[in-house]
């Protein structure tokens, strides 16, 4: 059994003097209970339970407590200064994160099977963010202690060694994680914090009482039965509100399966990564659909005519009938032109499920047998490996792009714009040991 604790006190120059100091505490304990039980249960190889609690503090970015003026280019000989558009804040408090974690590690049958399970909660408080604010405040951003967010989650990993003979072995590793976040409180009684905004009026937000990272934008107008409404012009009606939640950037869960097989001198390993749920919003699809560069913008309509043909009143008509109902509830029958000048679909049409199943990695190794190595003097081992990464997207729901591609790797996830193809790497690796 172990138990340890830490304490630390920091004082930061980037915080206002009266709030500059903050403390860290942590306490962690573990108990290797298998020591007590191994005599009774010989199938138990090891078992450990652990728990820890920690608080962590953080300071503000430099220069975020006082407003200063920005020098502007001279106009002739006139000197120009401007007031900053990001409001600094002389009353910032340090950030605090409090986390609790409990875990159980067990292995059975002489370490042939085992698992590691963790449950955690982390509450982040007073996060220092230059939040976007209404420009009517005279600023576009303001440094605030932005709020409190809770993360709770489970991390599970399992390993098994189902076959183990002198010539052949099979190892399998499974991991699975699920995180749930919730925004508990926001600055100054705000109900929404905009994390990022993108072209086409898409925003990523931390909304009160919702999971962090809601994607918001315009959507269809629905009737009471949940059917999409079509206007008298034959096109979809679109909300004027931009606060409709189109999805969330976070997955429901992530998982990975790694298998490795070894037969004599050959070994084969592959890793499959799985993401379930979450949303990716695609600016590429938005533009490509309305400019008509995607294959799905051509084709035949219900009459068997090319959709890009002119709309006429007889059966030679091009155009499409959008799926939906008119204001009186009857099914839409109006055929309309779909081109770069016709009304665009609402942003909601370009929110995709970000799930995927990927063959992330595969390796195939040949190790030279000892009989050959014996003739090579000091050389103790030669392994030749063919490896590949990002080999195959087995399943996804976003057309033409990898749902994992993101505009940004920071907080502003969940939006694609000019997504690059994922690069596939295939290589040969020789390892010689002496």
């Amino acid at each position, binding site marked *: 059994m172990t138990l340890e604790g830490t304490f630390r006190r920091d*004082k*930061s*120059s*980037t*915080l206002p*003097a009266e709030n*500059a100091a903050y403390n860290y505490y942590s306490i962690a304990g573990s108990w290797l209970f298998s020591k007590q039980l191994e005599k009774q249960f010989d199938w138990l190889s090891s078992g450990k339970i652990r728990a820890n609690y920690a608080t962590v503090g953080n300071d503000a970015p*430099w*220069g975020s*407590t*006082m407003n*200063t*003026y*920005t*020098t*502007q*280019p001279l*106009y*002739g*000989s*006139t*000197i*120009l*200064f*401007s*007031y900053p*558009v990001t*409001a600094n804040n002389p009353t910032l408090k340090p950030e605090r994160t409090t986390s609790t974690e409990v875990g159980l590690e067990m292995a059975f049958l002489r370490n042939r099977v085992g698992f590691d399970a963790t449950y955690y909660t982390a509450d982040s408080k007073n996060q220092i963010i230059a939040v*976007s*604010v*209404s*420009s*009517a*405040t*005279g*600023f*576009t951003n*303001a440094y*605030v202690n932005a709020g409190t967010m809770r993360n709770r989650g489970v991390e599970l990993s399992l390993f098994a060694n189902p076959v183990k003979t002198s010539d052949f072995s099979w190892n399998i590793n499974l991991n699975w994680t699920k995180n749930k976040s919730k925004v508990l409180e926001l*600055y*100054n*009684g*705000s*109900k*929404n914090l*905009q994390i990022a*905004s993108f*072209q*086409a*009026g898409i*925003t990523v*937000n931390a909304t009160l009482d919702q999971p962090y990272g809601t994607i*918001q934008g315009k959507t269809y107008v629905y009737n009471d039965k949940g059917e999409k409404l079509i206007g008298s012009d034959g096109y979809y009606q679109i909300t*004027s509100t*931009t*606060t409709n939640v189109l999805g969330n950037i976070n997955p429901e869960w992530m998982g990975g399966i790694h298998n490795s097989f070894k037969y004599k001198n050959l070994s084969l390993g592959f890793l499959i990564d799985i993401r379930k749920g979450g949303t990716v919003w695609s600016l590429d699809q938005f533009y490509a659909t309305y400019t008509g560069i995607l294959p799905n913008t051509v084709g035949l309509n219900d009459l068997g005519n090319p959709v890009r043909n002119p709309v006429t009143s007889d059966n030679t008509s091009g155009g499409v009938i959008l799926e939906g109902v008119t204001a009186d509830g009857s099914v839409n029958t109006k055929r309309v032109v779909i081109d*770069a*000048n*016709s*009304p665009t679909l609402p942003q909601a049409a370009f929110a995709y499920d970000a799930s995927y199943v990927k063959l992330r990695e595969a390796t195939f190794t040949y190790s030279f047998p000892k009989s050959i190595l014996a003739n090579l003097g000091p050389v103790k081992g030669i392994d030749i490996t063919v490896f590949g990464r990002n080999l195959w997207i087995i399943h996804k729901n976003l057309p033409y792009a990898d749902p994992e591609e993101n505009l940004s790797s920071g907080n502003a996830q969940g939006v694609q714009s000019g997504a690059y193809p994922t690069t596939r790497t295939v290589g040969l690796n020789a390892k010689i040991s002496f």
Partner: protein
Amino acid sequence: MKKLIIFFISLLCLGACKKDLSSLNTETKKPAAVPAGTLFSYATKAYVDAITSASVNTNVFRFTVSHWSMVTYQDEAQYDFTTRAIPQAWSTTMYTRVIKNLQVSSGIINADVLLNADVKTNQLAMIDILQVLAYSTLVNTFGNVPYSQALDQANLFPVYDDAKTISLDLISRLNKDISSLKTASAGFSVSEDLLYKGSVAKWIKFANSLRLQQAMIIADADNAAAKTAVEASSADAFASAADNASFAYLAGAPNQNPLFVDIVTGGRGDYLAAKDLVDKLKTLSDPRLSQYFTTNVSGDYVGGIVGVVNTASAFSKPAAKVYAADAPTLILDYVEMEFYKAEAVERGYAVSGTAAEHYNNAITASILYWGGTQADVAAYLANPSVAYATASGTWKEKIGTQKWIALYNRPYAGWTELRRLDFPKITAPVGAKSGFPNRLTYPGNEQQLNGDNYTAAAAAIGGDLVTTKLFWDKF
């Protein structure tokens, strides 16, 4: 020995600790205090940059009034203001770059105990006039906007005030500014005052002209208030082009006209003449045609159709003088004052002269401003389709049509007058995303950032749509 080393090392550590760390967080590259005039000058330029620009990200009203058309990208010409977040850019410029800097500037002046009291009064009035100008731009663009609770760092969720209440308050602020400006004392210095080089007398005329304009804008909604303010202002408004509120761009970077930066420096050949304006100018044999536009490759004046892809070579383009590096921008001018006075006469306000006289003065001043001659003026006014007595339609149509022509390259002002006078009738762009925009929708991010107040304001004005009419837009 070892103990001694430990002792000294710990002593060194103590020496490194400072009691007061906050000085490390002090910005030393940027000033914490500046003269008030630098902010006033900056705000003036920021406002003028915004109304001059033709950027598809900020100011697209040249398409809305059918003066210009686009070669390739038609979104904004088709009344799509949201894809490029134009309302947000427009509002952010007015609040953060213009009004906030003016507010800070007046705070510095108020706190300056050494400043001569009369100079202080003059400077505060000038700042207030520009604030009124910027707020009027906001209120006449959006309707209800944050006003009484705006510009307060401690209030991140300002409420929206009623548009009519704001408009009336802006007029009463101008009343106060006009009475407090005193020509006996200085205002801002020659170099700080980018509009009038320190002439307080000119600022009085500017304030009167702005009051005349703002009063006429609300005339259909509150005739009594408009009449009082117009009659109080008409005698002291701009009396000639020399009084114009004109901002001089400079030939050298970085103070060139934004159109030059966009079209010449940026190499954008996107902008073409629009059919509505070119056709009208041709029909009337307007001498300003060749001042406003170039000819196409065949030597003809042809306007492109707003909302469709136009072949650049087949159509006229804006004339080089429009986007010269040092082309000045008018904030408010004598031409407008004469048109307003013509209108005031028609509305029965006590303003000297006849409607025809003011109408002729306005057209004359406009043609001369653009480089025409007195002979051009005489020929043009003799045209029965131009002459006030014989031109077609009501006074709104006569004045509206000529004002629409005269407000070339004044996109925001042209849009306001078009909404107010309802003439001429603009050809809707091909592929219009909505009816004619009577306002801009609120900045998209207000829904995320100031949601409750936004929702209340949208309901109060009758829906946050571009087609919702502002309170003064009765027809």
